[in-house]
């Protein structure tokens, strides 16, 4: 798949916003720290929502996408994201236990919706796994906790260390989950082959023409077209920046730099998440002519 910046930003930003909200509610933060944190969380969520509009051909019709919540995880996300944002705002207004719990429930539902958008597609075997949902959740929580540590270091120094410790634990779990999915995906066997794609039972089939010389939507949307070195670099960036580097920075009590490094790592992680997914339609687009 060709990673789209709008989707990379959407999923990584709302993940950080969600994680930050959970961190604030779990720590029962209060005062200026809570208000700034919720503001930052809302800013992350709003920036993600804004980025998502750039993915649409017709952003002015985006309201329509709430219609098919019975069948579509994308539609469910479209409903849950604004609902969660409203609850974050409500928690800033009245930081009561009930609103906090409702917010956390909506937050977890949003993680599930976002993950299931990818995990529900049977053809993308790299995504078709519970690990997708787990990793979206854990990575979001880890980045949110790192953000909370950075914020606490500024406004509530007493809480900076507990947040950093939590960020280390959740970050380690998220890293393990991501490693597990990397291992799983490296061992995947594609279910579709050229033989099943064109229905000719022969081990040796080569494409001669794909029906267009100058590329098409199918070649642009489903191939990232980057050399293998770039994909390798993204994988190394994700391996280093998602947890090890931020962990060291957290231990060195540099939570803000840790958050920035981790966010860059999450962008690399999301890029690689798309780039490594091989869509079966690619079998029909192996050679131009």
């Amino acid at each position: 798949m060709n990673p789209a910046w709008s989707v990379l930003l959407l999923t990584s930003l709302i993940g950080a916003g969600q994680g930050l909200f959970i961190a604030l509610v779990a720590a029962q933060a209060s005062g200026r720290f809570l208000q700034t944190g919720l503001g930052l969380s809302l800013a992350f969520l709003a920036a993600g929502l804004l980025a998502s509009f750039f993915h649409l051909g017709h952003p002015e019709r985006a309201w329509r996408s709430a219609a098919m919540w019975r069948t579509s995880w994308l539609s469910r996300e479209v409903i849950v994201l604004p609902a969660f944002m409203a609850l974050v705002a409500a928690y800033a207004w009245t930081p009561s236990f009930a609103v906090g719990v409702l917010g956390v429930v909506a937050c977890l539902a949003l993680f599930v919706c976002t993950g299931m958008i990818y995990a529900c597609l049977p053809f993308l075997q790299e995504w078709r796994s519970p690990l997708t949902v787990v990793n979206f959740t854990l990575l979001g929580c880890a980045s949110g906790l790192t953000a909370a540590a950075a914020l606490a270091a500024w406004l509530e120094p007493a809480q900076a260390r507990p947040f950093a410790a939590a960020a280390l634990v959740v970050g380690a779990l998220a890293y393990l989950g991501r490693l597990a999915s990397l291992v799983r995906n490296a061992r995947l066997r594609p279910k579709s082959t050229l033989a099943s794609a064109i229905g000719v039972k022969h081990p040796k089939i080569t494409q001669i023409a794909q029906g267009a010389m100058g590329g098409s939507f199918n070649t642009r949307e489903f191939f990232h077209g980057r050399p293998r070195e770039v994909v390798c670099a993204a994988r190394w960036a994700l391996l280093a920046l998602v947890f090890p580097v931020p962990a060291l920075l957290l231990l060195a009590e540099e939570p803000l730099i840790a958050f920035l490094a981790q966010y860059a790592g999450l962008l690399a992680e999301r890029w690689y998440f798309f780039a490594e997914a091989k869509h079966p339609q690619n079998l029909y687009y192996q050679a131009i002519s």
Partner: protein
Amino acid sequence: MTTKQLALVIDLNVCVGCHACVTSCKGWNDAGAAGPLTDQNPYGADPSGTFFNRVQTFEVGEFPHTETVHLPKSCLHCEDPPCVPVCPTGASYKRAEDGIVLVDYDKCIGCKYCSWACPYGAREIDEQQKVMKKCTLCVDRIYDAKLPEAERKPACVLACPTSARLFGDIHDPESEASRAIREQGGYALMPEWGTQPANHYLPRRKTGKRLHPDELERHDNPLKVDGKLPRPSPDDPALDDVTSW
């Protein structure tokens, strides 16, 4: 299962890869209710465009024992279309009355999620109109009562010079399409995903003639080697006083 499922049955044994279905499809649908199908830079160095149907070519086997297979590929109008439930707006739908999978261009937000959910790459976004497009089975043609009955077929079917494309209701066991699937080994693409494509393909077949010995050795004995045949006695009955048995 819908009561009716319109579909194409494409005979790979006779498809010659001429792209007449591609151009006729583009021609009709550019002007039809589903149009336009916009192109980008059509005469430039890097042309691109929206197509409902593309003919792809594959080489099977290793030289010199190769065969060329042309595969016209369009939306297969799956009986269980994975692209429909994922659509957040309901713009993608499968018609109950005839099983055609369609996109409502006025509702589509261009999120491309349905194209991710199609294993065949049958959906293409129109880069100018920014909505998802796909084969409509010429839905604006096949029910058009103003057309003569014989022309109420998809444009690609009418254009095919080798009649490689059959169109019909595959739930009606007596239709030409169903009969072709049943009797000529019709198969679906990527059956492993359980999408149950309505469009079927007829496999390539070895076309040869089987000769029986009696076809090599003619019974009327044209070389006049009369002695090799038992000479009938003049008293034997003859059909026409010429043949010998």
